[in-house]
C-alpha cells in the first residue's frame, strides 16, 4: 500500500524535474524538424520582403528564436507552417519599421545611372518598384505571388480580415504596376 501523504509531499519538484529533460528533448526534436523544413520558404520570403539576403538570414534566425521561445504556445504541430509564417511576417515587418526606407534608398543610390542601364532590364525595374512599396503591400505581394497563398491564408498570416487582404492586394498591384511603368518610361527617355 502506498503512502499517499508521502507521495503528496514529494510532489512538486519530483514531478517537474523528472519530466522536464525528456520534455525539452522531445520538443526540441519537433522544433528542429519542422523549422528546418520551413527554412527555404521562410528565407526566400524574408529576402523578397527585406530586399537583402543578409538581413533575411538575421530575420529568419530571429523568427526561429521566437518560435522556440514560444514553442509551448503551439498546440498543434499541424499548424506549425501557418504559425511560423506569421512569426516570420511579424519579424520582417518589425525590421522594416525599424529600418524605414533607408536600406532601400541606400541600395538604389549606390547604383549609378550607368549600372542601372546595364542591369537585367525590365525585371530589375520591377524589383526596384517592389522595393518602393509599403511594408504591408510588399508582404501581401510576396505571400500571394511568391508563396501562392490564398486570400484566407494571407489573412491568417497577417492577422487582418480577408477583405483587407483583397484591398491591399488591389492597391499593391496598382502601385507596383505604376512604379514599374514609370521606371520603364524613365528608362526609355534616358535611352533617347
Amino acid at each position, binding site marked *: 500500500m*502506498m*503512502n*499517499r*501523504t*508521502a*507521495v*503528496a*509531499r*514529494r*510532489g*512538486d*519538484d*519530483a*514531478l*517537474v524535474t*523528472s*519530466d522536464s529533460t*525528456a*520534455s525539452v528533448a*522531445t*520538443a*526540441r526534436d519537433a522544433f*528542429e524538424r519542422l*523549422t528546418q523544413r520551413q*527554412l*527555404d520558404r*521562410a*528565407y*526566400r520570403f524574408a*529576402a*523578397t520582403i527585406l530586399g537583402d*539576403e543578409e538581413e533575411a*538570414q538575421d530575420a*529568419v*534566425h530571429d*523568427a*526561429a*528564436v*521566437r518560435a*522556440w*521561445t*514560444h514553442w*509551448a*504556445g503551439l*498546440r498543434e504541430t499541424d499548424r506549425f507552417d501557418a504559425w511560423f509564417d*506569421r512569426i516570420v511576417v*511579424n*519579424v520582417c*515587418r*518589425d525590421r522594416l519599421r525599424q529600418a524605414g526606407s533607408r536600406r532601400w534608398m541606400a541600395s538604389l543610390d549606390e547604383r549609378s545611372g550607368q549600372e542601372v542601364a546595364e542591369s537585367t532590364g*525590365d*525585371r530589375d525595374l*520591377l*524589383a526596384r518598384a*517592389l522595393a518602393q512599396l509599403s511594408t504591408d503591400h510588399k508582404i501581401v505581394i510576396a505571400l500571394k*505571388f*511568391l508563396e501562392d497563398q490564398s486570400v484566407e491564408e494571407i489573412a491568417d498570416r497577417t*492577422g487582418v480580415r480577408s477583405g483587407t487582404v483583397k484591398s491591399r492586394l488591389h492597391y499593391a498591384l496598382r502601385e507596383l504596376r505604376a512604379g*514599374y*511603368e514609370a521606371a520603364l518610361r524613365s528608362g526609355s527617355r534616358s535611352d533617347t
Partner: protein
Amino acid sequence: MKGDFEDELGALMSEKARLQAPAALRLRVSAIPDKVAPSDDRLGLGATTRAIAVCSVVLVAAIVVASAWLRFGSVSGAATPSTLPTTAASTAPIPLTLDTEAEWSLPPSAGLICPQARYGPGPVRVAKTGSAMVFIPRVTGVEERLVWPHGYTGRVVDGIAQLLSPSGQIVAHEGDLLELGGGLGPDGAFYVCSIEIVQP
C-alpha cells in the same frame, strides 16, 4: 503593357522562389540554445496586436469571473475536488477543478517515498470538460479517477488547459500525452507521483 507587367512579376517571383536558405542559416538555427531568454512578445505579434489581445483577454476574464460570482456567490470556497487558486500568468487564467490530495500529514522525512508503478491504462491525454481538468487514457478513452499531489492546480489560459505544480510551473498542457507513475490508493484512485510527457 499589362501582359509585360504580369509576365515580369511572374518571372521575378520565379527567380526569388529559387532562393535557398544558406547552410550558415541552418547551422545558426540548429545552434539556438535550449534555453533562450524569455520574451514578452508572444509570437512576435507586435505591440498593437499584443495590447489588443491582452485587453480582450482581460475583458473576457472579467466577464467570466463576474458571471461566476453572480451565479455561485464565490469561486474559491469549494471543498475537494476544489476549484483551485491559480498563479500569475500572462493572460487572465480561468481555474479548472482537479482532484488533489489533502493537506500534509506526515513529517518531512516521509517525503522521499514516491511509488513509480506505471498507470495501467497507459498514456493519458490532457483535456478539459466543462470546468474540470481530465486525463483521458489514449487506449481505452475511459476516464478513471486520478489524484494529484497537494498543491497541483489546473487552469485555462487562452483557451488551453494547463496543469501547474505547487510552485506555479506549467508541467503539462491540454493535448499533451503523459505517462504517469504512482500507485493505487485504498479508494481505487490512482495517486500520481511522476509524469513524463511522451508527446507534446
